[in-house]
């Protein structure tokens, strides 16, 4: 599994980026969710995998005994997942409001703020 996970993460990154590059707002959200998933897995793998032993100290011991999983990436992941959720819900509500106000879900219709007037 350790051997295959990097490739799986690569596939997830590719798929999510492709979704993000779509013109459709809905696909953008799907892409974002997948992207954060891929990033989390990326962090997890970079922090090295430990099979079996979780980062919990047994009832009889005072300190953790090897093998136990590195708790640092896990703590980071927890934070990242929760914050990712915040972003996702915000985006989901945003797309709903945008659709209600503009009647479109096409990102190309929402580029007026960045356009400059032609110079004469």
């Amino acid at each position, binding site marked *: 599994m350790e051997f295959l996970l990097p490739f799986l993460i690569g596939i*997830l990154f590719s798929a999510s980026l492709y979704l993000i590059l779509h013109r459709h707002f809905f696909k953008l959200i799907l892409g974002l969710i997948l992207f954060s998933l891929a990033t989390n897995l990326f962090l997890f793998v970079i922090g090295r995998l430990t099979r079996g032993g979780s980062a919990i100290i047994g009832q009889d011991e005072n300190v953790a005994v090897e093998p136990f999983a590195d708790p640092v990436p896990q703590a980071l992941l927890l934070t990242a997942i929760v914050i990712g959720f915040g972003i996702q819900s915000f985006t989901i509500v945003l797309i709903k409001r945008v659709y209600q106000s503009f009647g479109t879900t096409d990102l190309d219709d929402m580029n007026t703020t960045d356009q400059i007037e032609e110079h004469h």
Partner: protein
Amino acid sequence: MFLAILAGFLLAFAAPLLHRWLGKWVVVPMALLPFTIFVYLLTLSPAVLAGNNLGELQAWAPSLNINLHFFLDGLSLLFALLITGFGTLIMLYAGGYLKGHPLLGRFYLYLTLFMTAMLGLVLAGNIMAIFVFWELTSISSYLLIGFNQDKESSRSSALQALLVTGLGGLALMGGLILVGMAGETYTLSELLERGDLVTNHALYLPALVLLLLGAFTKSAQFPFHFWLPNAMAAPTPVSAYLHSATMVKAGVYLLARLTPVMGGTDEWQYTLMIVGGITTVLGALLATQHVDLKAILAYTTISALGLLVTMTGIGTAPAMEAMVVFLLAHALYKGTLFLVAGNVDHATGTRDLTQLTGLSGTMRYTSIAALLAGMSMAGILPFFGFIGKELLYEASLEESPFRWILFAMSFFSGMVFVAVAIALGYGIFWRRSQNPTPLQHPDKPLLYLPPVILASAGLVFGLLPGFFVTPLLRRASEAMLGVEQTFDLALWHGFTLALGLSVLTVLLGYVVYRFSNRLLSYASRFSGLYLFGPANLYQLALRGFMTGATKITATIQNGYLRSYIAAIITAHIALVVLSLWENGPRLELGNNLHLLSQLRMYEIVLLLMIVSALIFLFKSQSRLTSIAIMGIVGYSASLFYILFGAPDVAATQLLIETLTVVIFVLILHKLPVFKYLSHATERYKYVTLSLTFGAVMTYVILIVKQYPLDSQLKAYFGQGSFLLGKGRNIVNVILVDFRAFDTLGEIVVLAVAAIGIMAMLKLRMHKGDKP
């Protein structure tokens, strides 16, 4: 000296207030300041004339080795006296010229600001300070040229002057820094003694190019001369002060100042002589093609500046002598003529040479000033201009391979000067006329006194050259040559070659004047050439910049989210590939193959599940299916977390995934079905980009995993979790104990998102509201 500069700046910014309090009497304090400085400089002059250089130091940015250093020698004294003396007269004149103008206070603000900056420029003893004051003069000149801000032409002329001189200023800064590096000091007095060090340094040539660019743009040398005639959009006092007597001479001052540091090399000499020569001839030629008094004066000024640059380039003792004498003479007569032109414009409402005639009867004092200045310009005995012209001829006739070219050039410009002098000093005033041009306003003392004083100075200096002027000019040329000068100025040298040539110049100049109408008729014939002139190139470049910038912005900032993201990802890929390419570690997959044997069946099933889910996701046309598929992917990921010892993460992931799906279904069920919106070609582009990105990320993980993780944190938390944090679940202890503040931050982020969501849900758009 520091106090003088400071007082200048303070008074400048007080000018609008003073104008409000004092009304038209604002002219009194404004003129009093330059006069006070003028007198103060006169009190310093005996020491300078005795051969001492005065210095004054104020710490400014000591950590950068930049001090506010003031330095007064013959050259700075000459310029400083010119600036303050002429400044006093200009302040008086402006009071009359812009009498009753509602913005007179602002005008004085700009003018005093300029005067102070110019004074700072010539008194600065540190080359960085020179640069700062240099830029200040450019900015104040911009404000002054654009003073009639309601006129389109004023504004564009001001911008043109600012862009040209500002560009030069930028080059100058680079040049000065290079000179400072080469000479290992920014202090002028030290630098002046390290000429050999600088000229032999590897940075000499780039420094020279940049410095000359700065000086040439400021002093309107070919091919940057075009901004000066346009700058005549400024009110006349400004033209007289900035664009004939002082600011345009800043470039000449810089060249003169740096002659001991940079001068003496072939590059220096030839560039100055060639550029100065072309400018001299071109300016004189163009002067004959105009009928506007100020335009004619502007072009002769360009010609005169060319002469000054050429003389600096020749660099011999007689050339330097001629340079300083001509500089003073030119400032006196050209300033006067500008003021005269202003008076004529003010009184008659026109500056067209062909419409003005017989004004001597109605503008008595102005016409006297014009006559005096004209005679000085023509180089007639016994005016100071005569001495200047004689010396110019002598200097150009010195033994050198180019003597005839140099002489022909100064002779040609001399001829045109005579013609212009006759036209301005005699033609419009004294030539008999049946119907003199009527006056709209009478001549006023405040308007005619300054030119009369200036013009008389030209006469007095000519008659008594030995008194004060000679020693001052000696010291000034000493500053450039570094050797003591003992020349004496005298009106009468006997019947020399130069005298004969002077007479010839005057005669031929008169001929030119007689045929000036015919010369004017050529003007239209040459107009086709202007298409290729630098002024047009400037317009083209300016327009090109504007449209180019618009296009680039429109391309880069096109408002399409996906192209922004594509750019970010591409840059990311490029950076990773670049850093891995250059002495990055190589991937050794072979060592990892044994890991394949550890694969478990359920792991492979999970993997297959995710991949097939993704394939389904791409094929799906329904929102609900997509959401369900996203759930599958998320749940599979959480199973991975369980497999590798992260139960907390897995739990959170499960929970969040469920919540997301619920929110999705609740909120998005009313949206329309989605279609493929991307174009086919773009799709291939994006597919390639996505695949590359995924491959790069995989590669990065594989590379990183080749190396053991060296983390003491794992051991630290493993040891301390129970003993220090009293908790057996290490991850939880980290979150709520060791890194509790991070968790607080996380909660804040969630709260902010929640507030945002609330705001969006409560938002009620009214009809007609701009989205």
